[in-house]
């Protein structure tokens, strides 16, 4: 299995990026050369140099250090959104598929309501209604994200609901809840978990987008989207202030997607 994983160079790159981000997240205080929040107006908008690798921003903070600390925020949002949305979506989807009938109808119609809005628009309106903060962005994205898992899980539950191993569990007298959690969910979760690994990147991107339009991270938080947003006006005179946060988002999202793709190739039985 490991050999198959490493046989794809793209997956390797993805894995490397993700590992790097995890390392940066954990060791941010030791790696970053400066305090990411320390304002030094006398040194504002300095171009990249040996002192400030990525230059300084509009209030003289070290961009390199801010980007390193930014990995914490991005990773936290990505993981938490998936960690909240995934179990909720999975359990609801499994119940819908397994129980069927009215319960299925109710759950799936609610899901449809959520899916009928474009995801980012729904997240925007929720975040705007709750007020701008990174926690509310997290909540908004979690609320927008779960229906996807519900759908995926429900369809795979439907396909294994009448499989022989489920039947045998029933025949030996296991109660339905046990069947659901011990037989159905473990055996239908794979496609959704692949989706979840891919989603990490998208969630980070969506959170950066919300912060960019001012609904997410508030100053002085070194969130990449917010950093991009505040460098908009000086883009032409201080290219570094926008370029490096932009690159950070790009590399991170790319990393998670490459890794997600690799995992899909590895785990999806259809690909074997």
């Amino acid at each position, binding site marked *: 299995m490991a050999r198959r994983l490493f046989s794809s160079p793209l997956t390797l790159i993805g894995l490397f990026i993700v590992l790097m981000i995890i390392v940066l997240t954990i060791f941010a205080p030791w790696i970053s050369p400066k305090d990411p929040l320390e304002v030094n*107006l006398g040194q504002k908008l300095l171009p990249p140099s040996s002192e400030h690798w990525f230059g300084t921003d509009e209030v003289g903070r070290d961009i390199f250090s801010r980007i390193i600390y930014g990995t914490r925020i991005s990773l936290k949002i990505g993981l938490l959104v998936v960690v909240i949305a995934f179990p909720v979506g999975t359990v609801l989807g499994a119940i819908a598929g397994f129980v069927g009938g009215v319960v299925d109808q109710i759950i799936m119609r609610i899901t449809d309501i959520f899916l009928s809005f474009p995801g980012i628009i729904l997240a925007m309106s929720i975040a705007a209604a709750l007020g701008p903060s990174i926690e509310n962005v997290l909540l908004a994205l979690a609320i927008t994200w779960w229906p996807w898992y519900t759908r995926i899980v429900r369809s795979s539950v439907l396909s294994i609901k009448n499989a022989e191993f489920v039947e045998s569990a029933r025949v030996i007298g296991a109660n339905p809840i046990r069947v659901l959690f011990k037989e159905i969910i473990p055996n239908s979760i794979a496609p959704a978990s692949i989706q979840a690994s891919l989603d990490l990147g998208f969630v980070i*991107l969506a959170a950066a*987008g919300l912060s960019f339009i*001012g609904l997410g991270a508030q*100053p002085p938080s070194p969130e990449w989207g917010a950093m*991009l947003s505040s460098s908009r006006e000086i883009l032409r005179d201080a290219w570094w202030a926008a370029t490096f946060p932009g690159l950070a988002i790009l590399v991170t999202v790319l990393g998670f*997607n490459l890794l997600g793709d690799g995992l899909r190739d590895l785990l999806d039985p259809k690909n074997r």
Partner: protein
Amino acid sequence: MRKNNFAIKMLVLALTVLLALAGCNKYNEETTKTPTDGKDNQPKQTEKAGSGNPDVFNYATNQDIPHLDPHGTSSNTSFRVTYMLYDRLVTYDGTDTEIKPQLAEKWDLPEDGVTYTFYLNKNAKFHDGTPVTAEAVKYSYTRALKIGKSAAGQFNGVIDENSFEIIDEHTIKIKLLKPFSPFLKTLGTVFGNIVNPKLSEHEGNDNGEAYLADKDMGSGPFVLDSWARGQKLVLKANSDYWGEVPKLKTVNVQIVNEPATARLMLEKGELDLLDDTMLSPDVLKQLEGADGIEILKSPGYAIDDISMNIEKKPLDNVKVRQAIAHAVNYDSIINDVLLGAGERIGGIIPKGMFGYNDAVKLYDFDLEKAKELLKEAGQEKGFKLEIAISENNEVRKNIAVMLQSDFKKIGIDLEIKSLAWPTYLDLVTSGKHQLAIGGWTPDYADPDYNLWYFAHSSSKGPGFNLAFYDNKKVDQLLEEGRQTVDEGRREEIYKEIQAIMAEEVPYIFPSQRKVQVPVRTWVKGFEINPMNTWYVPFQKITKD
């Protein structure tokens, strides 16, 4: 499956690049609607030659125009337009902060302290051709009071519906409820705009507010030609204007949301002038010396303020407020944030205006002193505070971030709340804020204006006393100042109020701003009024 993966990757890449280039992307949208399309039928060649079309003026702001009812709006972007569509009895012009005659040729000052007589210009007529009469004056002021919004704030308690006596078609007497020395100055503001009384045919049940929101019923040098909300408002010169007809035939007031876009358009010559609040000092510095662009500089009466809501603990303690005042790095704000385009000020009366007190207590940036004061107040353990700012304002954001960094050193954990303008306004006027950064420009040059709003207890909240400051002595002095005619005594009163407020610090005033406006060098006749910096004298501007 493989193809699909590739597609997703490309999509992610594209999205990321899009996000990174969002600013530029916006620009592409904008350039497709160059200001030349639409109403003016000039050949394309003239556009390319230097100054573009000398008859068409392109102005840009990044703040939308809510509506055009002169008595209902409190938005600078609306003021800018209605000041051109309507005339007033008296007006402000050029760099002068004193009134000049407009619809009123002359007036008699009161002998009894309250009765003014105005003699109207007999040539003045509204855009539909009907003459401007004493009836129109009465109608307009009564309407302003009835609507009860922004304009009423200026007239309430000064006049009511029984204050008017029409002598003849062109003469009107206005009797004030009680003496109010800045009365004539108030008539030159945008709230003194005279509306065509024919509006009464469209009044409905809201005094015609909805009807007038997107129409013009004035007598001013420009008429409203078209308005695509959120994009562009077009003014045409009123060729039958009773006064001097403007040289410009068309003025496009464009809404350009992204300041970076506006800057590019200015550099390319697609815009002639930008709203003075649009570009940050950093960008203005970069623009300095750019080909064909000039940064006009002028003294201004705009003052930045940090209000401290004294109804919220621990801001009710004067020692805490003084400590905070000592934790503001004033020099850094002026030199590093404003890049020198401002100066230190101790109160809300700007330097250069009548009543300015140059001897008030100034707080120096001294963190040790701040800590000491906090200790005296029993707050040495530190506490949390929130500061509200309106979004899309680079300068205020940078000031807030700086305060956050400095306050941390004295144990105050400052949280920045960056809010959309309507949300911000709602928060601060309802008194739910702790600290808030704002700015203030007087509508007329009288100390009563600034101080009444900032300090009188009746102005708490919606009246813009955002510190919820309440001092009986100050109230009493303000009321006395309004009714005093003797300028010397008035000056004393206002100076005393400033001294009291500097000691009690309900507000911190980081700086008095200099006005800096980026303009194409081919624009002539543009003068900056220190008081109404929103005011662009389109009727006097020419291009060559």
